């Protein structure tokens, strides 16, 4: 038994040992030994002498836009290749004035919402059934795992044959793209809930339904939200692809039209719209995470 071992009565659990104390022989003094490398622990609250973080974060995008404007103004970046930021803003304002912009956004948004609604619904139902029941797993999981490997974008020709070129194939494409990643995450989340907590729940008198409601489903929430975030990201991707199917309205239609006439400014406006909507979706998930996962001791970055 080493000298550092505490007496038997005070010994800690062997599974969680004390961190080994460095074996510093010799007398201890009050001042730090100059030979020992030391560092000062800094407060994370505020690092003095540095501009605030939001300023640093906004500075580089602003600089990029300025550089772009400069390149356009000097003619280094011709209008046919990429319109100047100033032009783009004016074009956007013009489109908004005629109402084209709002119409396009609304149409595209409603496609995404419809596809998301169907996809999320399907994923939640399928994942819950196969996550909770052995029979459900046997019936559902294998086919889903197989279908998952098919790239949904590759289904476009089939979807056109099935649904024609109206709204349906676009919505179906989005729904399919959303379903699989979400299913995987919810199913995985349910299956990875800590069995120690389920056991604790049972000793507290929770029945099967209570266990699912209080332990399994909330426990799967972090994973489900990761899936939702990913699903939203791919939903916009599916939208962009879906709207290349002979759309007569929506952001994709606006963009295709612009291509015919080499209107790079309109194309960029459309891209910005896509990006903006994607950002908005991400923001929604972030808020959801903050509210629903407040209990989690999560790492929030430094």
């Amino acid at each position, binding site marked *: 038994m080493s000298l550092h071992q505490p007496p*038997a*009565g005070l010994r800690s*659990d062997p599974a969680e040992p004390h961190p080994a104390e460095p074996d510093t022989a010799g007398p201890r003094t009050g001042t730090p030994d100059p030979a020992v490398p030391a560092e000062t622990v800094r407060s994370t609250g505020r690092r003095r002498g540095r501009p605030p973080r939001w300023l640093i974060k906004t500075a580089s995008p602003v600089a990029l836009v300025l550089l772009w404007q400069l390149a356009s103004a000097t003619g280094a970046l011709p209008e046919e290749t990429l319109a100047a930021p100033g032009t783009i803003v004016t074009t956007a304002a013009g489109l908004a004035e005629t109402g084209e912009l709002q119409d396009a956004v609304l149409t595209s948004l409603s496609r995404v919402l419809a596809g998301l609604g169907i996809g999320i619904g399907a994923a939640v139902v399928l994942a819950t059934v196969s996550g909770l029941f052995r029979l459900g797993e046997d019936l559902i999981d294998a086919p889903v795992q197989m279908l998952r490997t098919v790239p949904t974008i590759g289904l476009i020709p089939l979807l056109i044959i099935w649904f024609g070129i109206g709204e349906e194939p676009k919505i179906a494409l989005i729904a399919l793209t959303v379903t699989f990643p979400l299913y995987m995450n919810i199913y995985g989340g349910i299956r990875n809930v800590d069995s120690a*907590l389920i056991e*604790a*729940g049972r*000793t*507290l008198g929770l029945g099967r339904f209570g266990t699912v409601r*209080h332990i399994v489903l909330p426990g799967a929430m972090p994973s489900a939200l990761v899936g939702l975030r990913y699903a939203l990201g791919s939903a916009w991707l599916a939208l962009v692809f879906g709207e290349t199917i002979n759309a007569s309205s929506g952001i994709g239609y606006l963009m295709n039209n612009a291509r015919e006439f080499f209107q790079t400014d309109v194309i960029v406006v459309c891209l910005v719209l896509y990006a903006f909507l994607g950002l908005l979706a991400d923001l929604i998930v972030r808020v959801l995470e903050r509210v629903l996962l407040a*209990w989690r001791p999560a790492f929030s970055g430094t």
Partner: protein
Amino acid sequence: MASGLQRNLTPAPAAPADGTVVRVRGLTRAFDGRAVIDGLSLDVASGEFVALLGASGCGKSTLLRVLADLDHDITGEVTVARRRAVGFQAPRLIPWKRVWRNVVLGLPGRPDRNRAVRALEEVGLGHRVDVWPKVLSGGEAQRAALARALVRDPDLLLLDEPFSALDALTRIKAQDLVAELWQRHGCAVVLVTHDVEEAVLLADRVLVMRDGVIAQDQPIGLPRPRRRSAPEFVALRADLLAMLGVDRH
């Protein structure tokens, strides 16, 4: 001693008719053909405090899980009080439920905040009612788990090394708390521990488990409250250590 303070207000539920809360006969539990518990018999009287000692891996937790009705892969006869509560080595609080909701989780009816607050006050956590479990310290979490167990008014409280992860000082306080709560609630306790001193301090009876059975059954007749430094205490501790195969002389 202030025993039954809480209990006298509400009529105590009938313990099993013959006054025992645990009755085990010929219990066997094997993992992959190896019998970890092998023909074990055990009785615990209602209100009795029993400590269970034994070398690591001898099957203490396995026995406790059987008593907690978490393991059905057994042969033999096991009868336990219906009203049980379990405290594990890790507090196992549900991270997504606030502390008070953890305490009353699984109780019939709507979650009763006042009842949770009373239980938490009893373990000295009246100021931690509304926080998430993640902010509790190890000792606080373990006390919250204790409140969660006791709020169920169990006839039998099963504890599996509840203090082993705590630092020495916190552990002493937790042991005193358990002694006090046990006297107030009057429930039987089966406490699995590695700590001989803890066993002598708290238990009416210390059981030593070896080779899948209760190999030794040592009553502790010391008056309470017990002092760790009393000569009888020290002697009993040495006896038990010898039974466990640790010779300290």
